[in-house]
């Protein structure tokens, strides 16, 4: 039985090993992903980001519990969780501590939690997170929660990967306006003010709502997550004029307060995406971007293997000596010197 087949048959050890292969970018990992790729595309990918100390892990824990023990009439769903923490730029090591907040999920075979270090990636997600998500998707996890620290440009990465992005804030973490980065409003589908039992929650909520009101509704519906719609207009939004209004919710994750509302909004966002054609556009943008990145990297390595280091360095030297402009250098490298 291949590794991919073992994963599809529900073998959790095989899944764990596959995730390691994917993370280490081995040929075995790539081959298994190749086999599994046709089985991906069913899971709802939910990104959870926010500054450290906002309670993201506790929120993820509670959401997972909700999906596993939903209100009557709703089916329980299998939940995958990927928690990404930064690697130390000095040692390359990492402390991955998000499981500490997820003890309630222990012993539940319908939950799979995997911790990842960012391994040098600056965007908050690891380079290989998207592949790991595909493995969990193919393995049958229906909701995949991807948790990452919202530092630097992390928001861009998570918005590109997830269908629905939750941004978690908490009161009292500093000056309310400063604490709310502009990027967050671009990417947040749902804003959650966690630790809502703390003083200052009204200020935080008000500041968020005020900043949301400044965002132009038409712009938001066309430029979902800052990604331009594709030139192919064969997937017109059925209700393009009805933009998604980002809700601002309150929660106290450690006490389970506000969780069902968050889950409802996540479900409502999924329905919105499906009805507006946004789900398909999301998939196109996401997979298109992934394909582009792979293409670029493959093209550059193929080209590099077609030229000798000496020839390349000679051209670089000419640029350094100002005898050649960089643009002319590229033409010479790619097309040969036609002088």
């Amino acid at each position, binding site marked *: 039985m291949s590794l991919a087949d073992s994963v599809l048959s529900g073998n959790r050890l095989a899944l764990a090993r596959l995730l390691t292969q994917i993370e280490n970018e081995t040929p075995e990992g790539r081959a298994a992903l190749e086999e599994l790729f046709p089985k991906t595309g069913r899971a709802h990918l939910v990104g959870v980001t926010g500054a450290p100390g906002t309670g993201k892990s506790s929120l993820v824990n509670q959401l997972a519990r909700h999906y596993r023990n939903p209100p009557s009439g709703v089916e329980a769903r299998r939940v995958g969780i990927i928690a990404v923490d930064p690697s130390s730029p000095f*040692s390359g090591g*990492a402390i991955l*501590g998000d499981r500490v907040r997820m003890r309630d999920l*222990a012993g539940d075979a319908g939950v799979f939690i995997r911790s990842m270090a960012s391994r040098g990636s600056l965007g908050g997600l690891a380079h290989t997170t998207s592949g790991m998500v595909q493995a969990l998707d193919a393995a049958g996890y229906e909701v995949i929660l991807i948790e990452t620290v919202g530092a630097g440009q992390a928001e861009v990465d998570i918005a590109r990967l997830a269908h629905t992005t939750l941004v978690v804030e908490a009161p009292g973490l500093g000056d309310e306006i400063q604490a709310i980065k502009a990027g967050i409003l671009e990417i947040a589908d749902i804003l959650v003010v966690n630790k809502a039992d703390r003083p200052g929650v009204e200020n935080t909520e008000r500041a968020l709502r005020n900043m949301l009101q400044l965002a132009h509704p038409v712009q938001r519906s066309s430029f979902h997550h800052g990604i331009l719609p594709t030139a192919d207009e064969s997937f017109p939004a059925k209700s393009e004029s009805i933009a998604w209004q980002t809700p601002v919710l309150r929660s106290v994750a450690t006490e389970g307060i506000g969780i069902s509302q968050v889950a409802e909004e996540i479900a409502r966002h999924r329905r919105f995406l499906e009805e507006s054609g946004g789900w398909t556009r999301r998939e196109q943008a996401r997979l298109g971007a992934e394909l582009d990145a792979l293409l670029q990297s493959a093209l550059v390595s193929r080209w590099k293997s077609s030229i000798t280091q000496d020839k390349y360095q000679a051209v670089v030297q000419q640029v350094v000596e100002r005898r050649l402009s960089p643009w002319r250098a590229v033409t010479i490298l790619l097309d040969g010197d036609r002088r």
Partner: protein
Amino acid sequence: MSDRKIRVLVAKPGLDGHDRGAKVVARALRDAGMEVIYTGLRQTPEMIAEAALQEDVDVVGLSILSGAHMALLPRVLELLKMNQQEHIKVFVGGIIPDEDVPRLLEMGVVGVYGPGTLTDQIISDIQRTVGGNADSEN
């Protein structure tokens, strides 16, 4: 292909709440370039084995100051075996009487670290016992 990182699960099984040692070790392992999945206090052997499986770790480090090591360690080792994860190297630190050490090593524990152990010792032991597997594992 990226550098193969050593992944270590650090856990405190049982009921004792003194986690300073575990945190010191976790930080030292991070500074040595390892990825440490820190699971915190009051872990049951079942939780430890489940985490070791999902995280596909190379090493499990247990911190036990409660004296319950002779009950907890066999159970953890048994569960790792049941999950087909016998290759995982298990280390234990904390308060372990000298007379229990031979029995623990016989059971399959790879290292026992009492108070005063230098973190460098733990790091080099891990690198030595896991390092050799880096290319052949998986």
